[in-house]
């Protein structure tokens, strides 16, 4: 039996690696995504435009405006003259944020009264707008503190924030480890589901079924190469993350490999399940997409799972991507150097998913053939 499975695995790897097209399909995403993702998926707010309508000409507003224009988040700075322009820059996305200083701003500050600044944020870009507003608030706060200390007053207590595991909130630390999850998902799905569909189209699948190979052996023969490819890809991403982006790797390689293995197994289960239903590559491709979109959405990669309604949070438990993201980043082998018990605690759901999907695929195959 082992000989036959070995023949299947060798054939599968040869088919993937000898064809320039499928070779490109495996390695190009790794290279492209590791090169582009860290820059494209930045959640930092940078290179934005700040517009200011200053009705006040006192020293307080001028100093604040100067501080803003020096900030990294706003590289462009627009001076507005009237309300109509305010509407225009927001409506036409010329500025992310407009600050309005009323006529009596500096006067109130001098007097020690509460002075107000109005901030108008482009709600269509809610996320960046929120973050930009955060910057503004921080700057006003530090201006206040500076004024107080200049007057010789001390502030009773200050909150100092330190971000544990990622002190500079460097988003590359977050994005690169999750790439391991995203890219292996795609290739394992593609290899398992599309390659069986291709064999169906070519007629080689019948050839396999007529041979002494059992459906289970064929499944193993498709799963093992997919896992091997997932390993190669993960290794490439980890090396790139550490070597080129300087992402710290605090955890154990063995635990990471184990996680990738269990994860690839779970995804292979989904891939085989898709291929057991699909007759053509086109159908399998649609199947892959149908799986991918919710899998990414529910994984916590784009938005935190804690923000989802309770029932949806339960659904996310069935999403293998979610579990891998928990292990690889959030509390993280990568950044935190997660301990073995922590990893095992988060691995078993993957194994349960793998068990369920693989048995379902096995059942589907035998039902369809027999």
């Amino acid at each position, binding site marked *: 039996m082992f000989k036959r499975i070995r*023949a299947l695995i060798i054939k599968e790897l040869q088919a993937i690696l*000898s064809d320039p097209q499928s070779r490109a399909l495996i390695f190009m995403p790794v290279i492209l995504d590791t090169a582009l993702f860290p820059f494209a998926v930045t959640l930092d707010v940078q290179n934005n435009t700040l517009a200011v309508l200053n009705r006040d000409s006192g020293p307080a507003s001028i100093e604040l405006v100067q501080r803003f224009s020096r900030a990294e988040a706003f590289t462009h700075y627009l001076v507005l003259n009237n309300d109509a322009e305010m509407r225009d820059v927001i409506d036409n996305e010329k500025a992310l944020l407009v600050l309005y200083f009323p006529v009596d701003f500096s006067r109130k500050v001098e007097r020690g009264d509460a002075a107000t600044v109005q901030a108008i944020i482009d709600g269509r870009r809610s996320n960046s707008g929120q973050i930009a507003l955060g910057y503004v608030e921080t700057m006003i706060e530090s201006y206040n503190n500076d004024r107080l200390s200049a007057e010789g007053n001390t502030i009773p207590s200050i909150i100092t924030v330190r971000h544990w595991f990622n002190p500079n909130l460097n988003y590359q630390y977050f994005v690169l480890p999750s790439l391991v999850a995203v890219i292996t998902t795609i290739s394992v799905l593609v290899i398992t589901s599309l390659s069986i569909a291709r064999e169906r189209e070519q*007629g080689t699948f*019948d050839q396999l079924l*007529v*041979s*002494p190979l*059992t459906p289970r052996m064929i499944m193993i023969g498709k799963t093992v190469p997919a896992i091997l490819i997932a390993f190669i890809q993960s290794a490439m991403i980890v090396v790139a993350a550490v070597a080129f982006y300087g992402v710290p790797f605090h955890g154990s390689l063995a635990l990471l490999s184990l996680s990738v293995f269990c994860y690839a197994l779970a995804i292979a289960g989904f891939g085989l399940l898709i291929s057991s239903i699909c007759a053509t590559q086109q159908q399998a491709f649609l199947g892959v997409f149908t799986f991918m979109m919710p899998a990414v959405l529910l994984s916590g990669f784009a938005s935190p799972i804690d923000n989802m309604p309770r029932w949806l949070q339960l659904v996310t438990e069935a999403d293998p991507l979610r579990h891998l993201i928990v292990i690889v980043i959030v509390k993280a082998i990568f950044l935190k150097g997660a301990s073995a018990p922590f990893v095992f605690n988060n691995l078993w759901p993957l194994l349960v998913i793998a068990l369920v999907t693989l048995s379902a695929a096995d059942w589907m195959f035998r039902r369809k*053939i027999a």
Partner: protein
Amino acid sequence: MPEALVQLDHLSKSFPKSEKAALEELSARIVAGKVTGLVGPDGAGKTTLMRLMAGLMQPSTGSITIKGLDSVRDSVALRELVGYMPQKFGLYEDLTVEENFNLHADLRGVVGRDRDQEFERLLRLTDLTRFTSRMAGKLSGGMKQKLGLACALLGHPQILLLDEPGVGVDPISRRELWKMVRELVSQEIAVIWSTAYLDEAELCDEVLLLSDGKMLFNGEPGELTSRMRGRCFQIREIEGSRRQVLTRVLVCPEVLDAVIQGQSIRVVLRRDSDKPDLTKIDAGAHANWASIEPRFEDAFLDVLGEKPPGKSPLAEQLTNLPRDGATVIEAKNLTKRFGDFVATDNVSFQVIRGEIFGLLGPNGAGKSTTFKMMCGLLQPTSGTALVTGIDLKTSASEARQKLGYMAQKFSLYGNLTVHQNLMFFSGAYGLDGKEQAEEVGNMVRIFHLDPYLKSSADSLPLGFKQRLALACAMMHRPDILFLDEPTSGVDPVTRREFWTHINSVVEKGVTVMVTTHFMDEAEYCDRMALVFRGRIIAAGTPDELKAKARNEAHPEPSMEDAFIELITRDHHEQN
């Protein structure tokens, strides 16, 4: 001489990345009111020539002139003149017959009252009126071809290009198609009909015979065929194994070609050669020669000058299986339903060790379904399919270890090399180490695969693909071979070589089950079953089936005559 509608002038076409030209220095003229056959095996250049004439490609050198218009410069004007039916019908399978019609009419600018008249005319011609609301994908092969033909005829083209309209069409629908084409030709349309079936060439008025991009013959098919007169014979009343006799006939230097026809052997002699001595061939005391009519295929082989091999080194690898007369394959009341549709209806047959058993039938008759159930690829709704007494769908791999399987279009791994394919298939059957290397080496030697070991299977010439597929199916030395349409599209020499191998392994006691729609291939069977509408409507030896179909119109029916006769008879009985 009538005016030429199409003039090919030193036409050549080569494609980048391929050393050999697809077409080489072709010059010919095609006239109106005739069916011109573009004849040759797959890869001869037929489709390339079609596409050049349709103005879809530009010639590398030379030119095509259609009614005084150049195919490149005046391609827009030519579109009005030329109707083209590509190989895969050019139909939208998810649209109904009428929607397909409308779409093609819109594309061709046939509108208003013209359109209604055209529809009426073409529906009458194709007899599709009853099916206007059916999805094109749900039509039978023959009806699809008719619809494709009707769409190509919209807008009154003067030249009709039909790319392999005979593929996937059973003999009955094929006759109907020919009748339609004949009617068109009488209206002074030039029809160009491409085909890989050499027997179709005989139906054409003119023939361009292509092989490897070169034109071997241009003229009336009868002219070429008549050159073979006096060189075609049958050896009748053979005693002993006709397969062994065939081997002895083929090694005679005087013989150009020989094939089995039922209990007889059909022999074509080389030019200026005498019949070989029957005692030398050892065909038995009563064996005798009978003179028969030549066929176009004979002439093609004569022009090519290649001769199929008589002996197969493949069989020498095999050990003799005991001729115990055991039943190896058995179908018991096999039935398969897909919803309301009964694909296979209560089919039973038995195949004895060392026999070639054929399932013959039109497309969609249920022979593939039956075949798939026999090799365990499909679960019967009721009844059992037994191979060596074991039910394949429940049995484990040991039973399947004894099977060899060759699918339609040789299912090989296209992007793997020849060597990788051989290694995989031998590995899948449990060979490894020295034994595997030895077996792979044997196959490479027997099938002369040496020069191609590092080439991908997709890049092989068709003949070598066929050899590789057979090698992959034979490495584990199966007792039983399943062949699904094993030689469709390959040239006659390759087909004969294939059957030489099959004949010789059968002599060693291997049992073969084959599906085919090639009447020639049916002749190689010891026994066969004619499948129609899911049922076996006739079974027996090829000669028995022919005898059953004998009538006044066909005192000496060919396999095709018998096929059509038996099916029409059944059709009348059922209605």
